């Protein structure tokens, strides 16, 4: 038997490590060797081409089953898709209520379908280290439409936010041509008219408006808000923080936020902007303008207050205004009128703070070994990223589910309804045909995104698009290593709880704002500083390695 000296063993281990590290480069040896995976793929597939597999193929897909339009195998979507692309999708139907949990179990147990849609960044992070999902950035040459949209819409900075420590990204996000700000406030315009005040445009004017409402109706809290999950007053905090130039506070709370001025990451809950937001909230609560129950009540309770005239202002998006608030209130007070106001402007100026990325698709690493791998990537590219595929997924089949006039304006077919565009329609685009399905249809060109909008919402979006985009909503990449991620996860929960808890105490006046500095010090005691340093270190490291 050959005796190995300790030195030889060390040397061998070192060499092996070097070999495996070099294997991680962007152009790994694995990448180009796709000869065995081309079955069914199109020889030539480029921008503008209709994808069609050269032989019938089937791909398994995780399917997020929406309670409002439960999966039906007889949907026109499936048959038409097969007709156009020669692809049959084999859905694993998971109830929307627990989609993430099942996805997690399936991916971790190695039993995941090939295509895993409806993944919101950064949910994919936790799967990266296990190698269970595919670094899709290695295969963009198979996806001409995706690559073209990145290029044409200049989405590189946004895509960089998805990159992991190895410089690759693992998620194919939905892409929007223009940012789309959905949420803002809905206001009772009949009350505004009674009081003779104009619709507010800034947060200061919102304050003045609430003040006037309170003066006229001293027994109500004029503003009682909803969308308090998963974080209390999540949407309100988020909107306020965005207008102060701070992304990632509120319902999508992130521990650190990018401070463009300083060129580094700061701790969200200790930042100056966050202090201003909390101060503003405190002012609203202290003067009886904001219902303190905003931080604890359910959505339904907030709706009830608005409907019964116990409040006049509430957070909204286009759907909740039309589907919830207006019908609710119409039954009780036919004279009440509600309107979505422009996203209030704060110290950050008139910006459109929405991101242009959407939830997206992950691909199981097992797909790489599949003989139809190339065809699958082409198929995904066509369905989710080509103009034709996006139009198909959203509107269906021209002449059957929708019509298009000379100017290119789409309208539902006479017997089809969707989002109330054609209330006389007896069939529903989602329920009866399977189109406009959240799993397949999102993002795209401005005119496609807006094709479902009511004239009212178009007006809102036109004005929002007139505002300048906010570069600070796309922070530079600062991907953590596995160990760092584990470390930060350990810190994150306690920190987040502490921030939430103190946000409420400051806002509700249970803790005086003069103690803000003490609060920041307490956060440091809970590793807020160490957390921020780690992220800044990752940012520097990424810049050096991939910058």
């Amino acid at each position, binding site marked *: 038997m050959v005796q190995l000296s300790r030195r030889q063993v060390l040397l061998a281990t070192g060499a092996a490590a070097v070999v495996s590290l070099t294997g991680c480069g962007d152009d790994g040896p694995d990448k180009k060797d796709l000869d065995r995976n081309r079955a069914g793929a199109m020889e030539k597939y480029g921008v503008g081409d209709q994808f069609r597999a050269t032989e019938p193929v089937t791909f398994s897909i995780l399917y997020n089953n929406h309670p409002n339009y439960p999966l039906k195998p007889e949907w026109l979507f499936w048959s038409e898709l097969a007709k156009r692309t020669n692809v049959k999708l084999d859905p694993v139907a998971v*109830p929307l209520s627990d989609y993430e949990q099942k996805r997690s179990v399936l991916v971790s147990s190695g039993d995941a379908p090939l295509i895993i849609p409806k993944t919101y960044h950064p949910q994919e992070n936790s799967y990266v280290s296990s190698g269970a999902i595919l670094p899709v950035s290695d295969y963009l040459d198979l996806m001409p439409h995706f690559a073209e949209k990145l290029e044409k819409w200049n989405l590189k900075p946004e895509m960089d936010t998805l990159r992991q420590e190895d410089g690759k990204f693992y998620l194919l996000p939905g892409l929007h041509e223009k940012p789309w700000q959905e949420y803002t406030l809905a206001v009772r315009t009949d009350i505004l008219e009674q009081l003779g005040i104009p619709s507010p445009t800034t947060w200061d004017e919102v304050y003045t408006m609430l003040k006037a409402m309170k003066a006229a109706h001293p027994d109500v809290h004029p503003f009682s808000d909803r969308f308090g999950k998963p974080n209390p007053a999540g949407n309100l905090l988020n909107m306020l923080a965005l207008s102060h130039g701070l992304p990632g506070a509120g319902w999508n709370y992130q521990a650190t936020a990018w401070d463009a001025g300083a060129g580094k990451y700061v701790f969200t809950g200790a930042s100056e902007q966050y202090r201003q937001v909390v101060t503003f909230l405190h002012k609203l609560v202290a003067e009886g303008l904001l219902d303190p129950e905003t931080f604890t009540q359910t*959505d339904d309770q907030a709706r009830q207050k608005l409907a019964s005239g116990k409040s006049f202002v509430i957070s909204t998006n286009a759907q909740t205004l039309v589907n919830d608030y207006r019908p609710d209130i119409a039954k009780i007070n036919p004279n009440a009128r509600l309107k979505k106001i422009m996203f209030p402007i704060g110290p950050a100026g008139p910006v459109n703070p929405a991101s242009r990325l959407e939830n997206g698709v992950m691909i199981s690493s097992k797909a790489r070994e599949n003989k139809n791998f190339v065809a699958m990537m082409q198929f995904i590219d066509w369905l989710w990223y080509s103009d034709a595929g996006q139009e198909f997924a959203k509107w269906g089949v021209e002449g059957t589910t929708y019509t298009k006039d000379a100017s290119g304006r789409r309208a539902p077919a006479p017997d089809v309804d969707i989002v109330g565009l054609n209330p006389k329609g007896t069939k529903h685009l989602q329920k009866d045909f399977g189109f406009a399905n959240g799993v397949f249809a999102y993002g795209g060109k401005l005119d496609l995104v807006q094709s479902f909008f009511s004239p009212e919402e178009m007006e809102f979006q036109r004005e929002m698009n007139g505002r300048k985009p906010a570069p600070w909503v796309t922070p530079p990449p600062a991907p953590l290593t596995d160990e760092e991620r584990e470390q930060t996860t350990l810190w994150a929960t306690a920190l987040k709880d502490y921030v939430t808890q103190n946000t409420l105490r400051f806002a509700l006046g249970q803790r005086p704002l003069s103690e803000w500095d003490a609060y920041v010090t307490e956060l440091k005691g809970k590793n807020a500083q160490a957390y921020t340093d780690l992220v800044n270190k990752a940012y520097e490291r990424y810049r050096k390695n991939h910058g």
Partner: protein
Amino acid sequence: MVTPRPTRGYRVFQAVNAVVLTAVVVVTVYPFLTIVARSLSDNAAIVSGQVNLVPRGFNLTAYRVVTSDPAFWISYRNTVVYTVVATLISVVLTTCYAFVLSKKHLRGRTALVGIAVFTMFFTGGLIPNYVLVTSLGLKNTVWAVALPNAINVFNLLVMKAFFESLPVELEEAAAVDGLGTYGTLLRIVLPLSKAMVATMVLFYAVSFWNSWFAAFLYMDRQDLLPVTVYLRNLIVGASDATQTGGGLGSGDDIVQAAATIQSVTIVLTVLPILAVYPFIQRYFVSGIMLGAVKG
């Protein structure tokens, strides 16, 4: 015979008892009645917070909507099938195991009890369980729901205690008369244990009727899911969908499942199991007592 006059202390006790128990009943029944009232009300009345115990804007539209949804009935049928099959398996296995464990002369009895109790405190974890069930080929079958949770250790121990309380002489007599082990169990022990078995049936049936997680985990097709998952998706899903803003990107028309529809589904889901209770109630009390008082 003259019944002795109840003492003053006893009367006070009774009064307090009545008050406390009435309070408990009110607290328990109130939410249920609210749900029933909501299921019969107009959606707008619910949203504006007018419905408490009396339905406002009485109508049965929601019942018609829910009962005309084929997906609801498919899930409902699944729930019935899963509950019946799983309860049957569970009761048979639990009875057999408990009977064996109740025999003092059984060698390795402590080890067998230990094995069972061990699973009360330690589990393999979600993913290993999933991998096991999947590789056994149980996925998408009723067995995935029925087999992994077939024996509930708590129920097992209750039943074991009950069997231990039966007089040994009874079985000795049966043996003298020529009955074997199975004969003893089937002809002597089980007929004496009707109350116990009925209690077990109730326990298992309720837990399988209400359970959703196993089915959610192991069923990949919509038409295999039980009504609890259907209901959960309707309630949790609908309110979550409004939250995850980005999802609306497609113009998903997300309408929160109307409050009435939710209530109707809740009522229809609990109704059968509620109807079973009164019939098993009398066994239930005696069954549990029998197990408990064993010295």
